């Protein structure tokens, strides 16, 4: 039915603006801050944790944010060179390249050198119980006017939602709303739904991303792969050594 409606819109010429090429294409860098937030980089307020959610949050020991501790004594999944995952990457300040095609939007991430696809071809969102788990989820988008509304399921709950240890699970569903606010900026909000961890869905603040000219410092994505062969050496010779001097208390 949905495909029929989309086809009808196109036949009437009404869908041409929504699927116009190049609305999101470009390289972007997040330029909105979150350093004074109480718990999550995604939300300026405290999160509506369930008891189970708070327990998971408390068990996550990040190296950044209001609960930061020395990484040598933390449990950040990145500490062993695991992938950052989709939402931690989106909130991190590294270039993202978006390529808008007629049937999808592809996002290329410098951080970790990963990518994700947002399908805009009218397909259905897969059953969250069946899809994945994927570190970068499975995403289907639809245009609502100039806003690309994305539903992501099939996530791998071993990753964190941000640098500060905000949790999600394999069954978390996330809605993203991407909009171009002007010719140099796109914005993003996410709504997180997970009854196990959160007593109600919660919506992030508006994250903004500034477009980077191709000839600027951040205008070209470069390689930033996390290789275990390097991480193991770093942990042994730098991270753990820095935490184990003569004045160590842990």
């Amino acid at each position, binding site marked *: 039915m949905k495909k029929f409606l989309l086809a009808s819109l196109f036949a009437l010429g009404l869908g041409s603006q929504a699927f116009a090429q190049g609305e999101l294409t470009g390289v972007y860098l997040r330029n909105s*801050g979150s*350093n004074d937030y109480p718990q999550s980089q995604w939300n300026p307020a405290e999160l509506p944790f369930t008891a189970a959610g708070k327990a998971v949050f408390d068990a996550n020991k*990040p*190296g*950044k*944010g209001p609960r*930061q*501790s*020395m*990484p*040598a004594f*933390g449990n*950040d999944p*990145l*500490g062993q060179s695991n992938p950052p995952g989709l939402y931690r990457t989106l909130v991190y*300040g590294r270039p993202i390249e978006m390529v808008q095609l007629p049937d999808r939007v592809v996002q290329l991430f*410098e951080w970790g050198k990963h990518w994700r696809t947002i399908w805009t071809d009218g397909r259905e969102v897969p059953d969250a119980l069946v899809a994945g788990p994927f570190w970068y989820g499975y995403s289907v988008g639809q245009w609502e006017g100039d806003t690309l509304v994305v539903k992501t399921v099939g996530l791998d709950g071993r990753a964190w939602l941000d*640098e500060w240890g905000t949790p999600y699970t394999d069954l978390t569903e996330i809605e993203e709303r991407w909009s171009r606010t002007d010719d140099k900026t796109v914005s993003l909000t996410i709504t997180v739904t997970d009854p196990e961890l959160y007593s109600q869905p919660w919506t992030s603040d508006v994250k903004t991303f500034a477009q980077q000219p191709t000839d600027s*410092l*951040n205008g070209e994505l*470069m*390689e*930033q*792969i*996390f*290789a275990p062969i*390097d991480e193991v*050496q*770093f942990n042994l*010779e*730098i*991270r753990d*050594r*820095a*935490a*184990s*001097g*003569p*004045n*160590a*208390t842990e």
Partner: protein
Amino acid sequence: MKTLKLLPAIAGALFSLLTLFAAPAIAHHGTAVSYDQNGWITVKGTVTEFRWRNPHSALFLDITKESGDNVNYAIELPSPVLMSRSNGWTRATFKVGDTVEFRVHPSRTGADVGECLFDCLVYVNGELLASRLPNGETRTEGAAP
């Protein structure tokens, strides 16, 4: 007069705040908390290894401490992507045998490890290297070593 005396402390506090707020955007795995972000020390020694690796680079120096002990000191640095973009550094910036002076935040536990992500005041064989400031600009001038 009191205000004048307090100016360095106020400037230091402001700089620390800048560094504190800027660090989460730049550090990769949150290692910044392992170092005294309010304190600086300067280490001077001879390069034994420059590790140009993602997501953490590192420089190793043979130094002589104030105590007279000779140690191999490790400096944690940003990723190659960040150093090449903002500082113009390359994997050939430091060579084994170079004499290097480097301003770093020392390990909070007193280990022979430091870290610098911004404004490192680095001299290689007596010449100042460009170094990114917390505000995104680049330092190209500094005090003589």
